[in-house]
């Protein structure tokens, strides 16, 4: 239930600039996800916020009060920042039982034994590991260890949750289950949450806000829907979405009724977003309509591969050297090498500057 601000924060490790002049605000109660490829500095941001790492420059404020300031030489130690942290590796102490692990923070806060017992009993039960207090972490499954790590974070009732890829060590099914539990947890506690992941689906499903990072810099800070619909640049566009967005080079000319896009092997007219010159068009796979029958408005492609996935089908189609991916939710039968006709939804095409990669114009949606 705190506001968190990072102001022009920079962190170097030797020559590597792990976090580069990063500014970021997390409003109270928000669930903000740091998303980006491995090595982009997410963990470093989280660790600086936790106080495990000292930035080289910048300020960090919680509720407007600086907990770190390079200028003024302020540094508030981690334990005084009212936050809890779950490490990617969980970092459960192998020589302590589950109970002892969870009780540690409360003991440090010199809480009475009685209260500790009650609190931990409640948390363990809530997290469905109530019977396992006397076990050692090694004697538990990955999912259970994850819950212990959460319990340990929750026990002292922190106002800020820091979660560093907490789900990445779980198998696919468990991960999906845990997502909703985490989301529920966030809602029930209302804690301001900073969540780190490289999994875009996690980010999209759980967060109220997403910050996409690359090489220590923020690429985009927006709501999940915005990040998905209007990625701020090619990097974000490419990173978000599965199957991946289609990015096709085109020459744009402003014409009647909209922009005219000339691709290598076909053209699209009357695109609503306005631009001219060398651009890259970003088209989500679900924004392409397939017609197995000849369609005068469609463009002829050849099916390269068909990947049915139950609820949807992912189709890869070629036209000359141009290759596009389409996501189709209708149950249609397609053969490889068969011919199909594609219609691009001209209202939903984002255009990016080919030179800078940044969004020139967003499709209105």
């Amino acid at each position, binding site marked *: 239930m705190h506001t968190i601000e990072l102001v022009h924060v920079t962190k170097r490790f030797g020559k590597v600039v792990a976090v580069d002049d990063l500014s970021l605000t997390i409003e109270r109660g928000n669930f903000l996800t740091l998303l980006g490829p491995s090595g982009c500095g997410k963990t470093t941001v989280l660790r600086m916020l936790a106080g495990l790492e000292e930035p080289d420059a910048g300020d960090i404020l919680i509720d407007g009060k600086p907990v770190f300031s390079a200028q003024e*030489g302020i*540094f508030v*130690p*981690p334990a005084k920042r009212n936050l809890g942290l779950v490490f990617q590796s969980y970092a459960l*102490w192998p020589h302590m039982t589950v109970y002892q692990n969870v009780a540690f923070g409360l003991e440090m806060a010199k809480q009475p034994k009685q209260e500790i017992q009650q609190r931990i009993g409640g948390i363990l039960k809530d997290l469905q590991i109530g019977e396992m207090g006397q076990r050692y972490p090694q004697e538990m499954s990955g999912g259970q260890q994850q819950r212990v790590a959460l319990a340990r974070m929750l026990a002292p009732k922190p106002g800020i949750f820091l979660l560093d890829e907490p789900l990445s060590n779980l198998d696919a099914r468990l991960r999906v289950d845990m997502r909703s539990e985490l989301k529920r947890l966030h809602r029930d506690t209302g804690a301001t949450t900073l969540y780190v992941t490289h999994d875009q689906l996690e980010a999209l499903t759980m967060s109220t806000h997403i910050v996409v990072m690359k090489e220590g810099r923020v690429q985009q800070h927006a709501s999940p829907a915005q990040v998905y619909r209007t990625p701020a640049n090619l990097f974000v566009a490419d990173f978000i979405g599965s199957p991946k967005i289609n990015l096709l080079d085109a020459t744009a000319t402003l014409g009647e009724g909209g922009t005219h896009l000339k691709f290598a092997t076909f053209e699209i007219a009357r695109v609503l977003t306005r631009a001219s010159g060398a651009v890259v068009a970003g088209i989500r796979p679900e924004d392409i309509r397939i017609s197995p029958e000849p369609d005068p408005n469609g463009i002829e492609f050849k099916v390269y591969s068909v990947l049915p996935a139950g609820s949807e089908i992912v189709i890869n189609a070629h036209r000359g050297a141009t290759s596009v991916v389409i996501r189709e939710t209708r149950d249609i039968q397609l053969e490889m090498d068969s011919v199909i006709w594609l219609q691009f939804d001209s209202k939903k095409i984002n255009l990016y500057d080919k030179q800078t990669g940044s969004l020139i114009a967003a499709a209105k949606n």
Partner: protein
Amino acid sequence: MMTAVAFPVSFAPTARRAWRKLTRPHVVLGLVLLGLLFYLVMIPLFIMIQTTITWQVEDQRLVRGVVPGEFTLFHWDRVFNSIISQAMLWTPLQNTLVTSIGISFFALSIGSLLAWLVVRSDLPGKGYISSIAIIPYMMPSWTLSLAWIVVFKNQRIGGSMGFFEALTGIAVPDWLSYGPVPIIITLSLHYYAFAFLLVSGALQSLDARLEESGEILGASRWQVLTRITFPLVIPAVLSAFILTFSRAMGSFGTPAFLGNPVRYYVLSTSLYNNIQSRLQADGFVIGLAMIAIAIVTIYINQRVIGVRKSFATLTGKGFTSTPVRLRAFRYPIFIIVITFLTIAVFAPLLFLGYESLMLKKNSYDLSNLSLHYWIGESNPKIADGIGGVLRESQTWASTWNSVALAVVTGVITSLLGIFLGYAIVKGRGTALSKFVEQVAFLPYLMPSIAFGAIYLGMFAQPMGPIPALYGTFWLLVLVSVAKHLPYSSRSGTAAVMQVGSELEEAAIIGGASWLTRFRRIIMPLTTAGLVSGFLLTFITTMRELSLIVLLVTPATRTLSTLNFRYSEQGYHQPGNALAILLIVIVLFSEWFVRRLRGAQIGKGLGA
């Protein structure tokens, strides 16, 4: 005006930051340890150097009218460039290189082979073999040479014959009785266990999947061994070589027993001879030469494997893999290994035991056997009245001293090891961490005798925070702790490295102070390393001789020094009885601690 005001404003935060950096636990710890190392290591080295370049009182014997304490290069000149240089330095140097390289070569070959068989093959009885194989490491290195003399003594130093000659009637040639050959053989039989520990540690942490992928790609066993296994463990093997080499070079007892009778001197015996003649400064020059050689070897080693070691990232995790099948060779190899271990481990004990039962020195007759030197009453006609060792109150007093010294040193050393490990690992990459690590290694290179001699003088007065320790038990503890620093920092580093830093950070978040973290997280998680380090120190301290021989007093005499005093005075039988007693105590303790805590002395070496 403006700047005068602005200055403190911009300065204070910087100072605060710097202060915070300086007060981080591992930095504080590193600085404290550096201070300690300064006392325990740097000052002794400094005194050693200083002694060599100043006149000493005893130099009056050679040069009249010298003023003690004044600067001179006399000792360096005398050692390097005088009529006795050849005999005092160059020949011993050559002999040292020959024996040390020979010892390292054989010890490494035997040790590595055995390590591979035990870790990777389907040799029967591997568990027993590996427990037995390390026994020589727990015996004082000179016991083997004593046993060698018992067996292969010839008429050269006259007196009684050895077992061999007594049984076969064949005169043993000099080269087999004394000199480089027996020195190399006996010390190889001791140090192979050291190499075995180091290499099997490396092999255990080698990911077997690397080997298996080679196999899947169609490589034969031999190809896997030579193309994958060897290159991966070679850095470990080479570093084991260097470690063995340095230790072999510094060993004193064996070359003294087996070399001196044929005037085969090595640097350590030459150093000792000088100190015996109260030519301490000359001895220290030789000691510094030994340090220099060790540094050069390390430098060469670094050059040779510096590039390669980068890919030898051993994961530190044990991997169970299907053992290599020896097939038809399984039992023949087993028999060879057993034979070898019998020769290296049991035969020496047997011969020493037998001699301790011989009432008169020369007679191998069964009628000459007696338990006198074990349980006999003191009889002035026999060995000047030294009674059976189990009866002598001296024995028990010194046993107690040995055990107390070994336990106290072990506890302090292993704790210090964890502290050192913490400062080194957490400060990884900083100059302080590197410096601490390197200074902690220095005692490894300093000859024990010289080390002891320096401590004798150094801690006579209060020395900074350390009170005068002269003649006390604590001086023995201090010198033993200092000498073990290289091992403790190594094992401590390995142990702390195994504790992921997030485990500590989780406690930071939880609000634990550094002391709490250390007590509740670091210590419990490094227990295995701690106990292993303790065990290693315990064992080596129990058998330590040259380090403390100058420092013991009757009140603090240990088993090994009592043994040395006996054999110095020619009382071989009670001496051997003591050696056996010592070995039994060590073996029992090792067994006990291992059962209790599952510790392994290999871990104590940081292997």
